[in-house]
């Protein structure tokens, strides 16, 4: 439960900011601007985590989503040859609209129906407990996620290796 004038004001402020930025992501015609709006959304969500006393989660949100993922998206935009065409009209717009409405139609009733457990005070969850849980009870999913990420990394490396480089490497080995 969020109590007190400060947190409540912060909640509404953050909500407005996040929603506006999310709208910006959708509306913005410039791909680069859209990503920047997306970053604001991420920061807003980190703010929500802070409001809920989940400080570690907020920091992780900033590091991972803003520091890594958003930057990677930006990088991808720069490296994509046809990025300059931006968010132009596509034939897929109606399909996307239908899909979006469908997802919203699924989510909104689910959220309204769900019985949310409300806590009167923020649970004290030190980071050490989080780590213990992660490496104790949830160690298998944790490891699986690591393996998945490693596989993705290796796959990316294999994908971007050009045949030319491979040939050069083989030549080099032969020379040795």
């Amino acid at each position, binding site marked *: 439960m969020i109590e007190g004038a400060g947190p409540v004001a912060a909640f509404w402020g953050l909500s407005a900011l996040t929603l506006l930025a999310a709208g910006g992501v959708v509306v913005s015609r410039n791909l680069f601007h859209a990503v920047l709006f997306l970053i604001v959304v991420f920061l807003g969500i980190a703010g929500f985590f802070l409001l809920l006393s989940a400080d570690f989660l907020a920091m992780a949100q900033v590091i991972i989503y803003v520091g890594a993922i958003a930057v990677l998206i930006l990088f991808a935009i720069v490296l994509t040859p046809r990025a300059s065409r931006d968010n132009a009209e596509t034939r897929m717009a109606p399909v996307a609209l239908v899909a979006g409405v469908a997802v919203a139609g699924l989510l909104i009733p689910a959220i309204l129906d769900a019985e949310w457990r409300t806590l009167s005070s923020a649970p004290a969850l030190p980071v050490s407990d989080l780590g213990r849980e992660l490496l104790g009870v949830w160690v298998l999913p944790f490891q699986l996620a690591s393996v998945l990420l490693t596989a993705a990394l290796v796959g990316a490396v294999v994908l971007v290796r*050009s045949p030319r480089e491979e040939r050069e490497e083989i030549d080099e080995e032969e020379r040795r």
Partner: protein
Amino acid sequence: MTEIRSEPFVVNIGPQHPSTHGVFRVKVTVDGERIVDAEMVMGYLHRSIEKLAEERTYTQNIPFTDRTDYLSSMSNNLGYCLAVEKLAGIEVPPRGNAIRVIMAELQRLASHCMAIGAFANDTGAWQTPVMWTFREREKILDLFEMTSGARLTCNYMRIGGVAFDLPKEFEPACRKLLATFPSFIDELHGLLSENEIFIARTRGIAVITPEQAINASLSGPMLRGSGVAWDIRKADPYCGYEQYDFDIPVGYNGDSYDRFIVRLEEMRQSVRIIEQALDGLPGGPYRTEVPLALRPPKGEAYARVEGPRGELGYYVVSDGGPAPFRFHIRPPSFINLSLLKEMTVGGTVADAIVALGSVDIVVGEIDR
């Protein structure tokens, strides 16, 4: 599997870029950071000195030669004067020759200071080596000011000798400089040649094989860096270079690092030559009197000196008049650039800058 590649795009290095050492431009096409094509664009500083020189007397042309390679004006003066002397058959007295050798070698020191400092700057050293070399170059320029009255464009050599005799303060000042110079070279050696990062940046970059170097008419440290022993001071001695004992440094495999250490070693050798020349400085006249409006006989002459950047040739044709009929400069840094494309393609932009720095260009000389 399709090859994933980024869009190649064209980057202009220059004409206003910190590392082009003047208004020189390289149009590079890059794919990511790799260079796939490089094209030189020059001429921003073209003053058509060769045409202007056809309208001046032989003596009036000497200041033009200052302004081609403004970092080694003494060598340029010397090359031109040698060509005219050869054309007109003028002998230079021994004292004049010795003074010329001292000045040319001091000029080589000054120019190599500049080259090494700028090269270190190109590898990314944040101004420190260039400031150190400027400090030493300053002392040499002071010596030039003492003798010729000018620091950069000295206009000191004359047809038949030099413009003035050495002032009496020159010798002690020069000896003082020579006493400290080897330790300065050792300092640079420690700062740069033995620096792991510097070696990593320059070793194996812009390799030129000896065959390539000879075929592309490279000269000076570029040629010697590739392991070719060629030095006009030894091969075709002028001004009495045959009296002095010095070695020619040659590199190992012709990369940027080799060109750098060759330059550094040349500085040591220059110090040796100046010491010998000062020790054996003959007396007598420093100049043969020649008429102001010299009219050499009909004919042509090609004289060359080993400038700091390489073979500096002057090709002068006379039709018997007071002005040269044809005046051509063989600019070393212009021809040394021939292989720039071969040196840069396949490397990164950073390598291209290092390659360009190791050529040691002076745009005034390229464009003339």
